[in-house]
């Protein structure tokens, strides 16, 4: 061990002792807003093998030899910027890139476009907001998650839903982060719209797999959403009026070039408008709306220190009133997150981010009825997290990343209380407490000119802690006393071999543990689905994923393509027992069964990323299966989200400075469901019997959406606006949301035949939205 330390020390000394090599570091920002740019490339134009990418905070660091260099910074959608320098000492070079245009939904041609080839990680997609905003929308609402669903390997939970299923994983296997805070519920309006307000978002990165070692806790994907920092140059107001909602975004400097803020909010009003018309006994007083609010401030304390404070608060509120029955329901639910971060540069090669994070997801279902009877059903997840991430830019071939984090969980999956005639009854289920911790180390290593490796190792540990009374042993645990500990190593390895300037081969393997689970007994993902922690009875989910891909660019990177294959094997998969009936007599975990799963597939992606025509084609051929000893007598079955074929075609055409057109076509194999196979007479009624689980499919899903964006010319350069005209489901395809059965179809002759009906919810829907900025 001692010898090993000596070797490291000697290597370090040699490394730092290279007197002719200096460090160039700094930030890459948007020139007009001061927003830092994530994932921008900075490289030596004379030797493009030497370069660096900006991290999540727009910081880069690289080592260059003494002498003359032409440094170039590039970022998709921005003009390149070059800086010529004669290097004789460490230097701080900040780049301010011009996008050329502002709110326009246009992808500007970029000079450095070989990320498809040069990036070492597999299954990573970055989506710029301007690309997202140019696509057709449902009811005028730009939706990040619906665009993510258009990527290969990602499928939706159903018509209009924002639920994500990535590479055969369940909806709980996606780590969704908003400024590092976990977002447990990503959907408004039962999942038809996502909680992310496009105006408040700067950057979205999807990792189809465990991602780098700094991420953990979910098996299938990481969706890292970063909020805007706020314009630190000038004040701007941006807004939009749509069919169902309006939004407003204000941002500006607090201290120019030093501190800025952004405030962004939106609210739906479609049922507010119809309130005067809800006069019947059944709907008077019934309303639904959602709102969300994003806020962020940042302050540059010094050239080495920055502070960020950001938060999100969103609520869906449904109320139902029936005057006849004196019955009312209120159903508020939503997320709240807040993140405080401190960026610190120990030196030009050693970056640290320290974060304190709070997040909460809660739903309450409150009902009141006759004679002062009332009830409340609640579910809540509450987390406090402290984490630190370090990046050490050792040299141009090694970037060392390490960190540690600890998250305190309090989960109250179900709390029920009801009160009738003064009698109060509460469910006996106490909250569960846990601490989830991890340490990680990763080296992004350029082994040779053509071969790169990102090797990471993460160790995660989950402690179920008291207060708790065991259902197994009856033992009572005090506060913080450990009830059960799970843990394990989680290795990650990504490799890239560059065959030539246009072709690379990549492979990756990752292993992970998941300790928090969303278990649903429904065929849809719902806000009432509850999150449960690992515990005495619930082991962690585990997953290993292998992937292999070929990446090829054509025509000077104008077209990028990839073919990726993956295989995923999962343990500790959770489902409800076949005979589960929702109840408040047993802890949920007593109703679970555990099994294993596997998913495999091939993804094809072709993207045209520059020119007047841009867009992509994504196709996935895949399978997702589960096996539980106590379900289907141990036979494997396909999951609800198994899609053999899944295809998306996205196209955008810029006609001129005023008009932009876009279209999206999606096709997917039908959603799986469990059919009814037989009828039997018992208890004076006809009863139904299910066939094999998920053995039937709805019709194939397909839909075409189109949009046109018109930007009127104005004399004032400050005032800009855009009209977005969209048609959702252009050819009025009746895609089934579900089918249901009618057993009451006896005719006059006493003959009976069960019937099935499909229900569709979104016909052709034209919409218009007006966005403005000044």
């Amino acid at each position, binding site marked *: 061990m001692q010898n090993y330390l000596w070797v490291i020390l000697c290597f370090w000394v040699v490394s730092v002792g290279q007197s002719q090599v200096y460090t160039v570091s700094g930030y890459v920002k948007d020139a007009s807003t001061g927003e830092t740019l994530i994932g921008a490339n900075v490289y030596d134009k004379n030797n493009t093998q030497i370069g660096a990418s900006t991290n999540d905070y727009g910081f880069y660091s690289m080592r260059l030899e003494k002498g003359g260099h032409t440094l170039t910074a590039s970022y998709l959608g921005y003009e390149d910027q070059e800086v010529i320098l004669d290097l004789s000492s460490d230097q701080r070079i900040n780049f301010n890139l011009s996008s050329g245009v502002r709110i326009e939904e246009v992808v500007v041609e970029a000079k450095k476009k070989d990320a498809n080839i040069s990036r070492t990680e597999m299954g990573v997609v970055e989506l710029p907001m301007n690309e997202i905003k140019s696509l057709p929308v449902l009811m005028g609402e730009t939706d990040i998650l619906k665009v993510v669903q258009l990527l290969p390997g990602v499928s939706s939970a159903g018509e209009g839903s924002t639920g994500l299923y990535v590479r055969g994983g369940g909806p709980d296997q996606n780590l969704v982060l908003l400024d590092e805070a976990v977002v447990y519920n990503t959907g408004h309006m039962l999942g038809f719209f996502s909680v992310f307000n496009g105006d408040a978002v700067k950057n979205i990165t999807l990792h189809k797999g465990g991602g780098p070692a700094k991420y953990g806790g979910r098996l299938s994907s990481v969706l890292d959403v970063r909020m805007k920092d706020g314009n630190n140059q000038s004040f701007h107001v941006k807004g939009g009026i749509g069919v169902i909602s309006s939004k407003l975004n204000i941002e500006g400097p607090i201290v120019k070039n030093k501190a800025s803020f952004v405030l962004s909010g939106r609210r739906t009003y479609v*049922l507010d408008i119809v309130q005067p018309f809800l006069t019947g006994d059944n*709907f008077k007083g019934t309303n639904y709306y959602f709102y969300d609010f994003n806020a962020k401030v940042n302050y540059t304390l010094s050239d080495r220190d920055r502070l960020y404070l950001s938060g999100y608060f969103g609520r869906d509120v449904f109320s139902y009133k029936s005057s006849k029955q004196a019955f009312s329901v209120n159903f508020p639910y939503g997320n709240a997150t807040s993140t405080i971060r401190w960026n610190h540069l120990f030196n030009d090669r050693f970056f640290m981010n320290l974060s304190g994070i709070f997040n909460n997801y809660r739903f309450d279902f409150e009902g009141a009825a006759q004679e002062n*009877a009332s009830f409340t059903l609640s579910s809540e997840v509450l987390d406090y997290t402290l984490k630190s991430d370090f990046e050490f830019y050792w040299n141009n071939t090694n970037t060392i990343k390490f960190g540690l984090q600890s998250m305190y969980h309090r989960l109250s999956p179900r709390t029920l209380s009801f009160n009738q005639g003064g009698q109060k009854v509460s469910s006996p289920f106490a909250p569960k407490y846990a601490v989830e911790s991890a340490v990680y180390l990763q080296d992004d290593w350029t082994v040779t000119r053509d071969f790169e490796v990102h090797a990471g190792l993460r160790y995660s540990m989950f402690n179920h802690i008291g207060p708790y009374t065991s259902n197994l042993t009856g033992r009572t645990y005090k506060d913080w006393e450990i009830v059960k500990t799970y843990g394990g190593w989680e290795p990650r390895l990504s490799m890239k071999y560059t065959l030539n300037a246009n072709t690379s081969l990549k492979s990756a393997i990752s292993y992970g543990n998941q300790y928090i689970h969303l278990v649903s007994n429904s065929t849809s993902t719902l806000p009432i689905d509850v999150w449960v922690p690992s515990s005495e009875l619930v082991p962690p989910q585990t997953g290993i994923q292998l992937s292999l891909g070929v990446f090829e660019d054509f025509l000077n990177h104008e077209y990028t393509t990839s073919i990726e294959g993956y295989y995923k094997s999962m343990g500790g998969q959770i489902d409800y027992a076949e*005979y589960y009936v929702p109840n408040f007599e047993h802890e949920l975990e007593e109703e679970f069964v555990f099994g294993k799963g596997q998913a495999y597939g091939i993804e094809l992606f072709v993207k045209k990323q520059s020119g007047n025509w841009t867009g992509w084609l994504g196709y996935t051929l895949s399978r997702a299966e589960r096996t539980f000893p106590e379900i289907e007598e141990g036979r494997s079955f396909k999951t609800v989200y198994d899609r053999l074929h899944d295809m998306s075609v996205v196209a955008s055409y810029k006609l001129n400075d005023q008009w932009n057109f876009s279209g999206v076509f999606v096709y997917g194999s039908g959603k799986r469901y469990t059919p009814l196979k037989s*009828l*039997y007479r018992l208890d004076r009624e006809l*009863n139904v*019997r299910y066939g094999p689980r998920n053995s039937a499919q709805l019709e194939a899903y397909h839909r075409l959406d189109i949009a046109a964006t018109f930007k009127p010319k104005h004399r004032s350069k400050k005032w800009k606006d855009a009209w977005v005209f969209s048609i959702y489901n252009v050819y009025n395809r009746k895609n089934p949301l579900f089918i249901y059965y009618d057993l009451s179809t006896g005719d006059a002759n006493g003959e009976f*035949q069960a019937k099935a009906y499909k229900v569709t919810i979104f016909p052709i829907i034209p919409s218009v939205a007006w966005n403005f900025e000044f």
Partner: protein
Amino acid sequence: MKWILEFLLNPSWLSMIIIVLLGMSCEEEVIPPPVEHAKEIVVEGYVEKGEGAMPPYVILSYSFPFFSKLSTEDFAKSFINAAEVYVVYSGNRYELEKVCLKDLPVLLREQLARQLGVNPALFESADLCFYIDLMRNIPVEEKGTYYLNAIVGGDTIKAETTIPEPVELDSLYYLPVVGVDSSYREMKASLDPPEGLHYYRYFAKVNQGRFQTASRSVFTDKLFSEEGLDFRLPKPEGADTKPGDPTRFLYEVGDTVTLKWSTIDEAHYDFWRTLEYNRQNQGPFSSYTRVKSNVQGGIGIWGGMRYFIYRSIVE
């Protein structure tokens, strides 16, 4: 309190939200691809102890493919009338006699039909038979375990049930409901059960009607406090009940209500718990819940119960 659970546990309220929110859904008939169906033997049999209890009996029938077109005759033919059925109790074997309804006098036939829940019209066209301990040879006792055996062709059916100990209600009363027609009352019961977990099922009949069950007719006393609990017993919904009618779970003043209050064993409870949930559970948010039967080699229920009858006039 049961209405609360009924509401919470019924996923239809989510569908209601969707409909209220979107108001644009449409539906059309479809014919799903057929699912392979192997005919299964359906058992419905009970061993009851209580006032006016039937002797132990079993109805055997076959299941149908889901999308088959079924006439009254098809239903009638589905009953199995060539089986050997016996019950083993305390090590003794008791044969159940086959009784075919068409051989019975009309009055008895109709009375039996009501009790068995069979449409009397079926008797005209079918050879509808069931199996019963007509001479009451089987001792029906609390805590007794009864083993059912049925041989149908080459198939053997087995099931087991226990008659649990009785748990009587402490009181039964009626209360008016705020906001509802004053001529209606809801039925409430008070129960302070003995120690241990008990499973209950209730039936009710109004005036001269037949016993019916609510859409959720079974529950346990697991959440009851030490002092017991007062709870609602909604009126079972009849075929003529109008959905959305606020009085559909209430009794009318002047009605004579007969409540059949029974304790059942866990397997019996699990069967009705899953069957009743399964009946209500369809739609986009439906879940996948199978019916938990205690019958081996077939489906259905062989259930023991100990019950009490409470008669009252709604005031």
